[in-house]
């Protein structure tokens, strides 16, 4: 089967699986979605009944899931219990999270590969040891601790970045939260790059290239790094899920109105349709990212496509 088609089939299976799981999970939460809507108001029985009918809350969970799917196939993401269009929420929130994740990705990539490549130049040297300890430190600090710390120091104390909200726009508003999410990815990327470069450096073709007398700069960028970067590309695809997970936490702390915050609010207020909408959309993004990574792999290493088609 063509790899793109293969991925699409996977996507459909994953979509049904995750959306049903998430739907059941939200349904299993204790409490009453109408209670959140009412706040300190007292709902009359009539209002309660009408709202339950409108949102199918009085039906069994599988029937509710059926309604949800039926709406979805009509291109309707449904509405929240307070009447907001879920499609609207997603349309407003995704760009924010996309900017956040992209910024985090760039930070990971630049700093991670940079650290790893420099460390690999002189294994065991001072910089290598420094880079290793730095990446361990970054991995050891929980994201929310880092986020509060960064917010206090770089946002409040030094005033370099806004501490809350996306009003300042890209990239200013996103640098600090993105760096906090990226901190988790920098370590693995630096390690991967370093190890992979060290392996590549001893490869035959590198020796050949060196014997032909090209400059060390050309050797490292054109021959070593390009080939060494393959595992890193794979990692970046997988890492998108972690970035989205980090976004849930960091968006809350930095008050960014992205999907992480929307998801947090939706879970808190038991809005199944929003939760499922966000999670399935997230699954699709991860699947698409993995597909892109596959294609990128092929572009970087022509051997891969051949192997698959022979198999």
């Amino acid at each position, binding site marked *: 089967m063509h790899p793109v088609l293969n991925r699409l089939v996977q996507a459909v299976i994953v979509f049904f699986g995750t959306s049903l799981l998430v739907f059941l999970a939200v349904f299993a939460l204790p409490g009453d979605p109408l209670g959140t809507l009412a706040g300190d108001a007292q*709902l009359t029985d009539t*209002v309660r009944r*009408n709202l339950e009918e409108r949102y199918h809350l009085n039906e069994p969970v599988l029937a509710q899931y059926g309604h949800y799917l039926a709406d979805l196939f009509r291109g309707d993401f449904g509405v929240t219990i307070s009447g907001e269009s879920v499609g609207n929420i997603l349309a407003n929130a995704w760009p924010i999270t996309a900017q956040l994740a992209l910024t985090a990705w760039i930070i990971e990539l630049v700093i991670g590969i940079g650290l790893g490549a420099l460390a690999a130049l002189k294994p065991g040297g001072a910089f290598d040891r420094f880079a290793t300890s730095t990446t361990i430190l*970054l991995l050891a600090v929980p994201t929310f601790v880092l986020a509060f710390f960064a917010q206090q120091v770089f946002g409040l104390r030094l005033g370099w*970045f806004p501490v809350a909200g996306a009003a300042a726009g890209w990239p200013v508003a996103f640098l600090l939260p993105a*760096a906090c999410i990226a901190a988790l990815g920098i370590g693995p990327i630096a390690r991967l790059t370093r190890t992979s470069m060290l392996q590549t450096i001893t490869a035959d073709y590198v020796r050949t290239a060196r014997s032909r007398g090209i400059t060390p700069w050309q050797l490292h960028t054109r021959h070593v790094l390009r080939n060494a970067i393959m595992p890193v590309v794979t990692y970046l695809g997988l890492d998108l899920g972690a970035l989205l997970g980090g976004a849930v936490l960091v968006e809350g702390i930095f008050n960014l109105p992205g999907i992480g915050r929307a998801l947090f*609010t939706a879970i808190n207020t038991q809005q199944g349709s929003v939760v499922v909408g966000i999670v399935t959309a997230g699954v699709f993004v991860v699947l698409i990212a993995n597909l892109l990574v596959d294609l990128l792999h092929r572009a970087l290493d022509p051997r891969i496509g051949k192997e698959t088609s022979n198999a």
Partner: protein
Amino acid sequence: MTRTTTRPRWLIALALTTAAAAALAGCTTPAASSPGTADTEAVLTVGIQKPTSLIPGNSSGLFANTVVGALFDGLVDYDPATGETRNLVASSIETDDQRVWKIEIAPGWTFHNGEPVDAASFARAWNAAVDPDNAWVQSDQFSNIEGYDEVAPAEGAPTAETLSGVSVDDELHLTVTLKKPNSQFPYLLGRQYYSPLPQAALDDPESFAAKPIGNGPYEMVEPWTGGDQIVTQTYPEYAGEAPVNGGVTFRVYTGNDVAYTDYQAGAVDIVTLNSADIPEAEAAYPELVRRSAVDDWRNYLSLPTYLPGYDNPDIRKALSMAIDRDAIISSLLDGQAHVATDYDIPISVGYRDDACGESCTYDPAAAKALWDAAGGIAGPLTVTSVTGTGREIWAEAIANQWAKTFDTEVTVAQVASENTWSGILGKEIESPVALGAPGNYPSPLDTLGPSYSSTGSVNGSFYANPEFDALLADAAAASGTETQMDLYAQAKDLLIRDTASILLWTYPSTYVVSERASSWVPDSFNKGQFGSVAITQ
């Protein structure tokens, strides 16, 4: 965080923030006027949390009320000093029997789209609020108006489309007939859900929900579809006292703590403080912390009076007398609260400073004697607190004081906030519960009706006393504030005699304001009042 990882970011950041600052400077207020002068064009930013709806009849909670209060004006508002109602859009409200209310509307009020505010606009709003097809959350607030059961029957199909008790006599005259007399009806008229609606609200409900058209001092600039700010500007044709600033932008935060961090960064003018942040804010900004002048929150313990032991008023009184409220306030609440002395809330007209007496006074020896004489309750006892409210700290203290006084085991349990009321009213939580409630409108009925009448919607102690119910009915039928308050006082005395729940303390809402908005004074009664804030540069 280490140097290597931050340095590239700062260099970028430095360049970018300079650029951003230059860009921002272009769109903020015009060139600085001399210090201390008010800028009537300047916009106030106020931190809130996401409102569920901006439609007056379909929204609830402090933050929605704040926004709706800025966009809409009702027939009356509350005197910021005394809490008594005073006419706003109404020019007179009269009744002979507390049942039929003749309301005259002042001419000259308009909605933000130019439609006049008349008797019909109020009738329209109230009919929309009770329409079962709308299923708006505040429907219950209109249930005492005649014809409610025909429009929104508890069972079966509606037999009428509009409230028979609301009749539009002419352009500016409205008559409201209630099912039962309610002398406190004018207090209800000041609540956001009694605000008028323009015809446009019914013609295009969808755009109205995103961009409500009110008659208040501020109008929406753009539709709000759940984004991180709600932008308003001063409505030039506003019929009330003209705002002295250019508008209010409400910034939506996930919590008061995030809003406070943003305040510290200078990005927002007025935020509500969580109690955990108050000490720090007071130390850092001693001149800028603002409290409502009158306490508008109360904490109390509901009691499972349907259980043996708790059904004995002497046991309940002993439990109350065994709590050292002063000690808890000074050691756990940073001295921010005041011992409760009456069964309503200080913002109520008629709240008494000395009514509770010995029942609310710490006296462990007398408490123990009373407890023993009444036979006590076989332990272990439980105090239930609601997760995420911070109340477990003092619930624990109360448990310890009870354990010490009565020489029994007392544990603290937790209940999730969304299950609290269903658990209490369903008799699933068989213990005292640490509760908190804000005042909604400054009448004693606001607390007494829902919390203690036998049909009350949040009567967590299951207090049922026909004598008490009769006094509330008498007060509802009586004319003259003095007579009404006297009857309410008698009703509250019954609650004190019976220790219907355990009163703890009351406390004010606390805010912190920016230098430029330092003229803002919180209003304990009216929400969303920002018109008088002169913004200085």
